[in-house]
């Protein structure tokens, strides 16, 4: 277990936290590093005239170097933002707007985070054309389809590094190579990838890369965008003003948050290999136990190309929201939502071709830095007990046990 992992949760009456893809607690070591910059070192990092400003500036530049280091970038190529949502908006809208006279086409993927898809929709309304590539059943992009989708006026290809629901890792180096050959920018939303898998913007030919603080045991409200300098990526800022961050993101930098993001990156870079191995073992333990206890449990997303801390499982014939209500001692996330409640089941699972009824039975289990074996065992126990109970009251489970093919029934979809 990494140092500083003394976050107690089980004796507090709180549920066991297994939702590390939604957010992570700030590592106590990160909080420690941040604290002085709220109080005694409160200076404005852009004040050039006195010690308060210099200290804050030094801290921000150290943090920038720490962020750059984990992705193999130069510190000058890192811009602080408020989070991955802003980074994604800036990357897509910024690049598209700058090149709008010559290039009018964007390529992305249907399983992207909503903030990427929404930025694309926005650009479509401005007259850009967007190709939304499908994914294969394992959640991965088909590279031939990518090659075919790039046009002469494609300005940017945006493909997420790791998917937030199913944890699959896209073939970044291959995508980067294709984009470089075709002379289009490659942006990747790496919110779920930084600190989980090795990333190298040069080896992978990544031109823009989005980072989020709170997914990597850093604070909420801070993120970064990597913007390549050689060859230079040109983009138009979303927020203008004092010209900070090379004019790409005006506004006084939040020194404590920058320091926190930097420290979080430094810790992640140091501990990534060990942490990945530990989480891999925990995930295997979870998966082996749950599949030994329950039949008809299906893993969504590729089995090997995925981050160690994610399991997305469908518990056939048990509706996810109903299951969530039973597993009160666990904080997990469900890909299910009843269509009638006008909430769609996960668009990511549907994009994998997971049948709608199976999409309604899925749970996302996110393991992280503070997850223990005991928590995994307790989670397996609760899920297995509740799935068994709910299957005993599931008409679908009963029909399947009787040999009825559910597809042979005329359901009244509503």
């Amino acid at each position, binding site marked *: 277990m990494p140092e500083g992992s003394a976050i107690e949760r089980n004796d507090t009456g709180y549920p066991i936290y297994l939702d590390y893809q939604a957010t992570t607690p700030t590592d106590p070591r990160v909080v420690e590093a941040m604290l002085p910059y709220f109080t005694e070192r409160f200076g404005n990092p852009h004040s050039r005239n006195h010690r308060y400003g210099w200290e804050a500036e030094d801290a921000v530049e150290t943090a920038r170097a720490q962020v750059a280091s984990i992705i193999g970038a130069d510190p000058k190529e890192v811009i602080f933002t408020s989070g991955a949502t802003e980074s994604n908006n800036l990357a897509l809208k910024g690049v598209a707007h700058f090149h709008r006279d010559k290039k009018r086409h964007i390529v992305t993927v249907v399983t992207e985070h909503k903030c990427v898809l929404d930025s694309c929709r926005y650009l479509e309304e401005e007259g850009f054309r967007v190709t939304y590539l499908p994914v294969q059943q394992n959640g991965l992009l088909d590279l031939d389809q990518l090659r075919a989708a790039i046009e002469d006026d494609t300005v940017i290809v945006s493909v997420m590094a790791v998917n937030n629901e199913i944890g699959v890792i896209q073939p970044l180096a291959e995508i980067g190579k294709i984009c470089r050959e075709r002379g289009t920018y490659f942006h990747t939303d790496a919110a779920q990838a930084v600190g989980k898998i090795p990333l190298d913007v040069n080896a992978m030919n990544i031109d823009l890369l989005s980072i989020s603080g709170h997914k990597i045991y850093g604070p909420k409200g801070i993120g970064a965008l990597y913007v390549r300098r050689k060859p230079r990526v040109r983009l138009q800022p979303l927020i203008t003003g004092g010209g900070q961050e090379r004019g790409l993101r005006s506004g006084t930098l939040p020194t404590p948050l920058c320091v926190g993001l930097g420290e979080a990156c430094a810790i992640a870079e140091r501990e990534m290999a060990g942490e990945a191995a530990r989480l891999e073992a925990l995930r295997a333990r979870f998966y082996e136990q749950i599949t030994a206890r329950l039949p008809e449990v299906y893993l969504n997303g590729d089995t090997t190309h995925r981050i160690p801390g994610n399991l997305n499982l469908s518990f056939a014939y048990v509706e996810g929201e109903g299951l969530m209500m039973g597993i009160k001692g666990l904080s997990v996330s469900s890909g299910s939502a009843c269509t009638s409640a006008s909430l769609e089941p996960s668009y990511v699972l549907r994009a994998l071709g997971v049948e709608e009824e199976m999409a309604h039975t899925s749970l996302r289990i996110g393991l992280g830095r503070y997850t223990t074996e005991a928590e995994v065992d307790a989670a397996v126990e609760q899920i297995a007990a509740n799935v068994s109970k709910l299957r005993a009251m599931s008409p679908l489970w*009963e029909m399947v046990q009787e040999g009825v093919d559910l597809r042979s029934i005329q359901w*009244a979809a509503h």
Partner: protein
Amino acid sequence: MAYSDKVVDHYENPRNVGTLDKNSGDVGTGLVGAPACGDVMKLQIKVGAGGLIEDAKFKTFGCGSAIASSSLATEWIKGKTLDEAASIRNTEIAQHLSLPPVKIHCSVLAEDAIKAAVADYRAKQPKTSQAAE
């Protein structure tokens, strides 16, 4: 989502979970909803010689509110005539369970399930006995 105490109670202690013999002449079966929509309810009634519902069972694939609505429905229809059972409105179920607006359709499903079970029972009865009812 915060669930009402009554929904939690029915979810944790569902009444009348089970199955009656759907091929039996005195059993009516209603199966409503669709797996693709995330909710399927099966509700069955057993009708006694006096025309009263003497037993009711359900199985539900769905959210906690759907499970609670069907559990409550089976409780309510026991001992009732077919007409009484078929006149139960979803609004009564929703009100009793304090369902929020997004969960109203879970109670609609329960009303539909009762009606479907009653209709199935009636369809099974020989024409003569139906006329004699």
